[in-house]
C-alpha cells in the first residue's frame, strides 16, 4: 500500500492581484488528474464518518471510489442520487465544518478535499454529459400536487426529491430568475450564474414547473394554493429581509443593505452598467459592516467594481468572524482591509444626504455572551471617524413576513421565523411544511438543502408514498 499522503492537491486559482479586478470565478477547479490524485488519498475507511457529516448524506466514499476508477458517470450518479445541486455545494458548502472535519485523515494531516472533488464531478458532468442523459427515468406519477414557495436551495432540493418520487411539483418564485440567494446573493466569482442555472435546469428536467414573478402572499395565498388543488405546500422562502443597525444617519445615500448591494451587482449585473441598466454606487472608500460570508462577498464585489479602499468593519476580532476561514483569507489576499474591534456609532452626511463618514467606537472583548463568543464592549471615549462614500450593512437577515402575515394558522417566533418540526419541517398548519432560513434564520446553503430533503420525505409519507 502506498504511503499515506497527508497533503491535499492544491486547487488552481486566479492570483489575488488579478482576481480582485474581475468577476470571473476565483477557484478554477481540479483537472481529472488532480481529482484522481486527491481521490487516491482517501483510505476508504469502513466507518465512513464523512457521510454522517453531510446534511444530505451523500455516499462520499462511493463517488470518490468512482473517481479513482475513472468511472465518472458513476460518480455523477452517486452524487446526484442525494444531491440535486452538487456544483453549487462543491463551491459554497462549509465542508471544513461538515464532511471534512470528521475525515479520519484530519487527525494526521489535511482531510480529503471532498468539496473540491464534488465540484469536479459536477463540472465534469456539465462538460461531458448532456442533461437528457443524466436525468433519471421518469417515476410513475402519483397524481398528487405539491406547491413549493421559493426557489433557493431548500425549495429546489425539496422540489427535486418530490418530483423524483412522482409528485407533480410547481415552484413559485418572486424574482425573475430561479435560484434565490444563489442567484441574487452569492457573487459570480464564487458561484457563477451558469452553474446555478444548470442545476436549476436539472431540477426543471425532473418535471418541476417553475413559475417566476409570482409573489406568494400577494398574487395568491397559501390557503388559495391549498384550495386550488395542491395537496401540500413547502415554504422555502429563506430569510430575505435585511437588518439595519438603527443608528443615526443610516438612511443616507450610499448606504446599502448587503441584500440591495449584492442584488444590484449580481442579479441585475450593475457591474456591467452601461450594458445593463441597473446602477450601483462604486465608491472610492467602501466600508462593509459585518463578519460573515455575506460581508466578505460584499467587500470583494466593491473591490471588483473599482473602489480604491475597501474595509471590513467588525465589532469583534477575527477569531469570532462567522465567515468561512477560506473567504476571510480570500478577502485579505485581495487587499480588503480589516478594521476589527470597531463598531459604527453613527453615519455622517453632507448637505446632499450623501454619506461621507462613519463615526466608530473602538471595542474590546469581555466575557462570553449567549453565542459563546466574547462580548464586544465599547471603549469609553474611543470615537474616531473613517471617511467613506459607500457603506454596506451586512449584519444578517430575517424572514420576510409576507407569507406569515397572509397565512392563517402559521405560527411564527418573535424573530419572525416559522415554527416547524426540527426533523421534518412540519409547521403548525395542516398540509404546510417549511425548511431552510425561514425556519432557522440565516444559515447555510447546505443546511437549507438538508431541511428541504427531510421535509420532502415527510411530505411524501403524508401523501401516501
Amino acid at each position: 500500500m502506498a504511503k499515506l499522503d497527508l497533503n491535499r492537491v492544491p486547487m488552481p486559482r486566479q492570483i489575488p492581484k488579478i482576481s480582485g479586478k474581475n468577476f470571473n470565478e476565483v477557484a478554477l477547479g481540479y483537472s481529472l488528474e488532480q481529482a484522481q490524485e486527491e481521490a487516491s488519498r482517501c483510505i476508504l475507511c469502513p466507518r465512513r464518518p464523512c457521510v454522517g457529516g453531510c446534511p444530505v448524506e451523500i455516499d462520499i466514499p462511493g463517488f470518490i471510489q468512482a473517481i479513482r476508477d475513472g468511472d465518472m458517470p458513476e460518480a455523477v450518479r452517486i452524487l446526484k442520487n442525494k444531491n440535486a445541486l452538487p456544483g453549487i455545494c462543491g463551491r459554497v458548502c462549509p465542508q471544513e465544518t461538515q464532511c471534512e472535519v470528521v475525515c479520519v485523515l484530519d487527525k494526521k494531516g489535511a482531510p480529503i478535499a471532498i468539496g473540491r472533488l464534488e465540484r469536479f464531478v459536477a463540472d465534469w458532468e456539465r462538460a461531458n454529459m448532456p442533461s437528457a442523459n443524466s436525468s433519471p427515468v421518469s417515476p410513475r406519477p402519483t397524481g398528487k400536487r405539491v406547491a413549493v414557495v421559493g426557489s433557493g436551495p431548500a425549495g429546489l432540493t425539496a422540489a427535486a426529491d418530490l418530483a423524483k418520487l412522482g409528485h407533480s411539483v410547481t415552484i413559485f418564485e418572486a424574482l425573475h430568475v430561479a435560484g434565490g440567494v444563489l442567484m441574487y446573493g452569492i457573487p459570480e466569482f464564487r458561484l457563477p450564474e451558469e452553474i446555478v442555472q444548470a442545476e436549476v435546469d436539472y431540477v426543471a428536467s425532473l418535471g418541476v414547473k417553475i413559475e417566476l414573478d409570482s409573489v406568494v402572499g400577494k398574487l395568491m395565498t397559501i390557503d388559495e394554493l391549498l384550495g386550488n388543488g395542491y395537496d401540500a405546500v413547502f415554504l422555502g422562502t429563506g430569510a430575505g429581509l435585511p437588518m439595519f443597525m438603527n443608528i443615526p444617519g443610516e438612511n443616507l445615500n450610499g448606504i446599502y443593505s448587503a441584500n440591495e448591494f449584492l442584488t444590484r451587482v449580481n442579479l441585475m449585473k450593475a457591474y456591467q452598467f452601461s450594458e445593463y441598466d441597473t446602477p450601483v454606487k462604486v465608491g472610492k472608500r467602501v466600508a462593509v459592516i459585518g463578519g460573515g460570508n455575506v460581508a466578505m462577498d460584499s467587500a470583494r464585489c466593491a473591490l471588483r467594481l473599482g473602489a480604491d479602499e475597501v474595509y471590513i468593519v467588525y465589532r469583534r476580532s477575527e477569531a469570532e468572524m462567522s465567515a468561512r476561514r477560506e473567504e476571510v483569507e480570500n478577502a485579505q489576499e485581495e487587499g480588503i482591509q480589516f478594521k476589527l474591534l470597531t463598531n459604527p456609532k453613527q453615519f455622517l452626511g453632507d448637505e446632499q444626504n450623501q454619506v461621507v463618514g462613519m463615526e466608530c467606537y473602538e471595542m474590546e472583548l469581555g466575557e462570553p455572551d449567549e453565542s459563546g463568543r466574547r462580548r464586544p464592549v465599547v471603549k469609553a471615549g474611543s470615537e474616531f471617524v473613517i471617511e467613506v462614500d459607500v457603506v454596506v450593512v451586512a449584519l444578517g437577515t430575517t424572514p420576510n413576513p409576507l407569507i406569515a402575515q397572509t397565512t392563517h394558522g402559521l405560527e411564527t417566533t418573535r424573530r419572525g421565523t416559522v415554527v416547524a418540526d426540527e426533523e421534518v419541517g412540519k409547521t403548525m398548519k395542516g398540509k404546510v411544511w417549511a425548511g431552510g432560513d425561514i425556519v432557522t434564520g440565516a444559515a447555510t446553503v447546505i443546511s437549507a438543502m438538508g431541511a428541504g430533503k427531510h421535509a420532502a420525505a415527510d411530505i411524501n409519507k403524508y401523501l401516501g408514498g
Partner: protein
Amino acid sequence: MPGIHLFKVAAPSVAKKARPGQFVVVRIDETGERIPLTIADWDEKEGSVTIVFMEVGTTTARLALLGEGDSMANFVGPLGLPTHIERFGTVVCVAGGVGVAPIAPIARELKEAGNKIISILGARSQNLLFWEDKLRSVSDQLIVTTDDGSYGRKGLVTEPLKELLASGEKIAQVVAIGPSIMMKFCAETTQPFGVKTMVSLNSIMVDGTGMCGCCRISVGGLTKFACVDGPDFDGHQVDWDLLIARQRIYLDEEKRSFEQWRGQSGSCA
C-alpha cells in the same frame, strides 16, 4: 401626449388580485432595470392591468418604444398594501400630473364606499392633462388647475385645496398623489387644518417585496420600507426631504445611462 404613456398589459393573474393603491414592478428585457409603476386600472374579465408612466430616463424611454402586441420580460404584482378604503365622509382627492392615474381607482372605490369625493386635478399645462372625464365620473365635484393657466384655473393644486379646507365644509380626509414636491406641499397645506392626508410614495425600488431596503424612508421618525409598509403613508409624518434626496441617489448614473442610450438608439435610427 408629450412623454406620457398608457399601456394596457395582459396580466390576468395580477388583474384578479389588484386593489387601488398597489403597484407592479416591471423589467423590459434581460438588460433592463426593475422599476415600480403604480397600477392605474385593471379589468379582471379582460385580464388586463393598466399602467401610466412618464418618460424620465432610460427605462421609461425604452418602455415608451413598445407598441401594441409587444411584451416586456417581467410584470410582477400586485405589490404593496392596498389603499385603506372606508366611509370617511368627504374626501378630497388631489392628483398632480400622472398622479391622476393611481388616484382614479382610489377615488372610484372611495365613492363606491359612500364618500363624497371632491377632486382636484392639476398639471403644468393643458397638454399634460388626461383622465379628466374619468376622474369627473367618480367625483361629486372636480376642480382643474394648470400652472400656466392654459386650462381650468391658473395656479397650483394647493390653492383650491386650501380654500376647500377653509370653507367650513367638514373634510374627513385628503388623498394626494403626484410628484413628491407636490405631495409635500399638499401635506403642509392640510397640516394646520388637522386633516389626515394620505400620500403614495414612489421611492426607488429593486425587488419591491421588502428584500433590499432601497426604498426606505422615515415616517414619524421610524424607518419604513415603501414597498411593503406602503406605498401609502400619512403625509404629515413623512420626512419629505429625505425621500426627495433618496430619489436622487442615481441622478448621475441615470443621466449617463440615458445619454448613452440616446446615442445608441440615435445611431440605429
